[in-house]
């Protein structure tokens, strides 16, 4: 009788212990003691993929990225590194219980106070999917959407965000751009959650002028906003990877189909200089590729100016 009683208590204790919240601990996005807070900077990228194994093979094959699974977040998080530096993370969508395909790259914007930023976002019409949540050494994160529906995350690190650099390594993140319906409304919104200054441009293309906004913080251009170029597609943050040359760009594009991806737009000359292409990985998550650096065009028919 006493043995059975003890068994019940032991089973109950085990059950309660298993149900206790498991602390999340992701590595910091920058080395300690070497960086400052840079609110407004896009400091990380997470990839939600419904085909993680194929996606891993895709990016490993194209860019020699390395993928290191972590036990954190119930084992559903993989660190992505390039040339020894962590550049992003990957999440297996099939383990999220999603009722729709949400495969995509998610930009993570640095904020100084994620609770305040989330409150400001809500007041400005944004949506909160995940309230501020501790990620241990990484900081505190909130997963949100802007009023027009673009998904993103806000991250408050421990006051240290990845330092700005002059150069951008090939096959790493070069730029981030919001494709949205109302460009000015979006610029106004993002100024509510981060200390951006906004410059307005009118980029002239053969198809006509394209309104463009550049959001800057700490004196550096942090992201762009433009009208959604894909009719009917939901507003989304579009990330760009750098490639050294047109030759490298074409080489990458040529390998995309064999690795399970799709070339959405082949290498195309940009009015602002250089070339751009858009590809999608096996999950359908899209990413742009842009040659960098670029020389500004001298042709009079391609102009841009500050408004």
């Amino acid at each position, binding site marked *: 009788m006493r043995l059975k009683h003890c068994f019940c208590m032991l089973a109950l204790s085990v059950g309660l212990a298993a149900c206790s919240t498991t602390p999340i601990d992701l590595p910091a996005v920058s080395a300690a003691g070497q960086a400052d807070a840079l609110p407004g900077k896009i400091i990380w990228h*997470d990839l939600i993929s419904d085909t993680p194994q194929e996606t891993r093979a895709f990016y490993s094959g194209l860019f020699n990225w390395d993928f290191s699974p972590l036990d954190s977040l119930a084992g559903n998080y993989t660190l992505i590194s390039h040339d020894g530096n962590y550049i992003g993370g990957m999440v297996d969508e099939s383990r999220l219980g999603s009722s729709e395909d949400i495969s995509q790259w998610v930009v993570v914007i640095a904020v100084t106070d994620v609770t305040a930023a989330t409150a400001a976002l809500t007041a400005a019409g944004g949506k909160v999917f995940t309230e501020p949540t501790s990620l241990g050494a990484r900081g505190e994160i909130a997963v949100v959407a802007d009023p027009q529906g673009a998904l993103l995350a806000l991250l408050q690190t421990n006051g240290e965000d990845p330092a700005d650099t002059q150069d951008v390594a090939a096959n790493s993140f*070069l730029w981030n751009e919001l494709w949205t319906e109302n460009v000015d409304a979006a610029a106004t919104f993002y100024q509510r959650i981060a200390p951006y200054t906004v410059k307005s441009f009118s980029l002239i293309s053969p198809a006509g002028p394209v309104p463009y906004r550049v959001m800057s913080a700490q004196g550096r*251009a942090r992201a762009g906003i433009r009208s959604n*170029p894909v009719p009917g*597609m*939901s507003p989304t943050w579009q990330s760009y990877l750098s490639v050294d040359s047109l030759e490298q760009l074409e080489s990458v594009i040529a390998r995309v189909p064999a690795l399970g991806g799709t070339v959405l*737009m082949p290498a195309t000359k940009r009015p602002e200089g250089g070339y751009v292409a858009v590809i*999608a990985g096996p999950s359908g998550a899209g990413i*742009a590729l842009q040659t960098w650096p670029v020389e500004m065009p001298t042709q009079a028919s391609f102009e841009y100016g500050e408004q």
Partner: protein
Amino acid sequence: MLKTLKILRMTLLAAVVGSLSGCNDPHIYGSVGISSGYGGYGGYGRHGGWNSGISTSISVGGRIH
């Protein structure tokens, strides 16, 4: 008495099993794909808007400086 204790023991075991099956910490992206009222965020590579004429539109933008 013995029957009551047996019922209590089985009830406790059932409660433990039930609590274990529900012990899944929510993922930070776990709520994104189950929210109603929003269209699909992802998989835009499968979106039909990527026609042959999209290049001119998308080629404008990107990093300028």
